[in-house]
């Protein structure tokens, strides 16, 4: 994310960036999938593909996930690979990072990213910085994921957005997708990445359906991490956003289009 902002800010390379940016996929829709199911399928496929991948977090197993994102996974993969933890974020985040040190590929779920503050030391000091401090001797292939940012009336302690906080830490890849396609492709890429990834979802997006093409539904569909995307073509002004607010930008663009202003909506992933 940091490198993209860097590109966008330097005037000279703006044009070349526009030409290099991807257009959003408009291939024929194969199926309608909501973000929750896209994440669920992504994890399922990656668990199947690599024995070393496992999921741990509060209520991810027998409860099927606090927000049902991990529904069905425990039934399919069992106790060894889908692990319910006690309510001890700092402890289980540390355990997840240690498992990554020793060669496994954990997915550590925070029930919401607000609770990650209890474990933020493990995310930053143990996960993000280790590859650098060891001069490349110790990679940390871990994904931290969970809902981030605004929700529906859950008050201050449960509504913070951590994109800016985590985005400033070298050694961490921070992803904040909007659509089901992005969620799917980027979660798979995050799990396959050998670096610590902070994957910021949004609770209110979980139930939103999107059309996914056959190509996107392929089990090896991954999106490149760190590359921005144009959701809507436009010529007069660019709206840049991430996660749920992309939807608002698109709504705003639709309103403005009636007045003759064509907005380009760009998604920073």
């Amino acid at each position, binding site marked *: 994310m940091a*490198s993209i902002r860097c590109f966008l800010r330097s005037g000279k390379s703006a044009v070349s960036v526009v030409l290099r940016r991807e257009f959003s996929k408009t291939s024929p829709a194969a199926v309608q999938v909501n973000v929750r199911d896209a994440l669920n399928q992504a994890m399922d496929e990656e668990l199947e593909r690599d024995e070393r991948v496992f999921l741990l977090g509060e209520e991810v197993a027998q409860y099927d996930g606090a927000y049902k994102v991990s529904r069905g996974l425990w039934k399919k993969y069992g106790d060894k690979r889908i692990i319910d933890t006690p309510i001890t974020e*700092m402890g289980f985040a540390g355990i997840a990072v240690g498992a990554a040190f020793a060669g*496994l590929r954990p997915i550590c779920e925070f029930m919401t990213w607000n609770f990650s503050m209890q474990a933020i030391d493990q995310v930053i000091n143990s996960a993000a910085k280790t590859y650098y401090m060891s*001069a*490349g001797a110790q990679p940390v292939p871990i994904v931290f994921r969970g809902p981030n940012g605004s929700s529906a009336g859950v008050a201050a302690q449960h509504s913070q957005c951590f994109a800016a906080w985590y985005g400033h830490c*070298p050694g961490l890849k921070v992803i904040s997708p909007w659509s089901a396609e992005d969620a799917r492709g980027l979660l798979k890429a995050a799990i396959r990445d050998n670096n610590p990834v902070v994957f910021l979802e949004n609770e209110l997006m979980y139930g939103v359906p999107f059309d996914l093409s056959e190509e996107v539904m392929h089990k090896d569909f991954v999106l490149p991490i760190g590359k921005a995307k144009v959701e809507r073509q436009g010529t007069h002004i660019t709206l840049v956003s991430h996660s749920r607010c992309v939807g608002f930008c698109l709504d705003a663009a639709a309103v403005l289009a009636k007045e003759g202003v064509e907005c380009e909506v760009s998604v920073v992933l």
Partner: protein
Amino acid sequence: MQKMLTIISNVLRGSARRNGAQVVSEATSLVVASRSYADFTPEATFDIKKVDLHRLEEGPPLTATLTREEGLKYYRTMQTIRRMELKADQLYKQKIIRGFCHLYDGQEACAVGIEGGITLSDHLITAYRAHGYTLTRGGTVREIMAELTGRRGGIAKGKGGSMHMYTKNFYGGNGIVGAQVPLGAGVALACKYLGNDQLCVSLYGDGAANQGQIFETYNMSSLWKLPIIFICENNQYAMGTSVERSAASTEYYKRGDYIPGIRVDGMDVLCVREATKFAADHCRSGKGPILMELQTYRYHGHSMSDPGVSYRTREEIQEVRSKSDPISMLKDRMLSNNMASIEELKEIDIAVRKEIEDAAQFATTDPEPPLDDLCSHIFANDQPFEVRGATPWTKLTSTS
């Protein structure tokens, strides 16, 4: 005996002009050569202190058998750690080592004893007082000292420093107090997950023992029966706060509550070894975690910025040094049981001194890492990318 002494005195008189070390080594090699190794006891059994038990019916054995080879190896390793730490002290005072430097002298029996109870295919993680463990886990003195001086020949290429040294199955070297304990449990989880019969030793100090995340780790390790040995190196002081002033319960081996614990004399390398073997058996038999408290002592202050005498007396330090020094204890045992000769041990001392000198020389002359390394190793397995420096027009390339 008389004949040997005559030989030695002749040699010494005849070489009055040559330097002392050469003379001693000549005399030593003469003595050693004239005394065959069949004279030494190959193996002896020693009584060791009984350990305190928590939630255990039986503890480690009350005797330990030491072979001559093991004894010499432990002696050499402990002496290497001792001299390496003292050299680091010297280099720090000369400002050749900067930043943090937490020295391990006094606690050598812990690192060496623990390694004697596990294998290199087991895993170990500790906090920032890590130079001794880096050595016992396979690092060389050269790499360690060059890392302390921040040079490219360092074990972390000069980017980690004193607190961030890594080798195979050794996960540092961790700066945040207590954070290494859940990390160690994660490594143990991986051992259980992969079914490789390995275990993880997770160390922390008396100061860290009050950290909440350690209790969280006790809980999960017990629930999931992880193959982890928790080891509390109790050197009586957390920086400058004594155990009585920081812990409501100073019986650290009992703090695991439902986790069985043992309290061990950490100044006796054989005690530590037998306790570690006992703990390792416990883990490998699938019984889950076990906790070991090692009662030990550090001669230096908490770090190089701490003289170490504002919160404890010089007399206390002196008393431990004279009564319980781990290296002296092993030396006395070996000599009084005829397992080695004074000269042989002196030869080891000389060899160790030379190794440390060479390492210090390397550490002082090796070049610092190149500027490009400042931004490299941010991400693993990635394409090189540009990182903006302090100004928009300064850029460095980051490679994996």
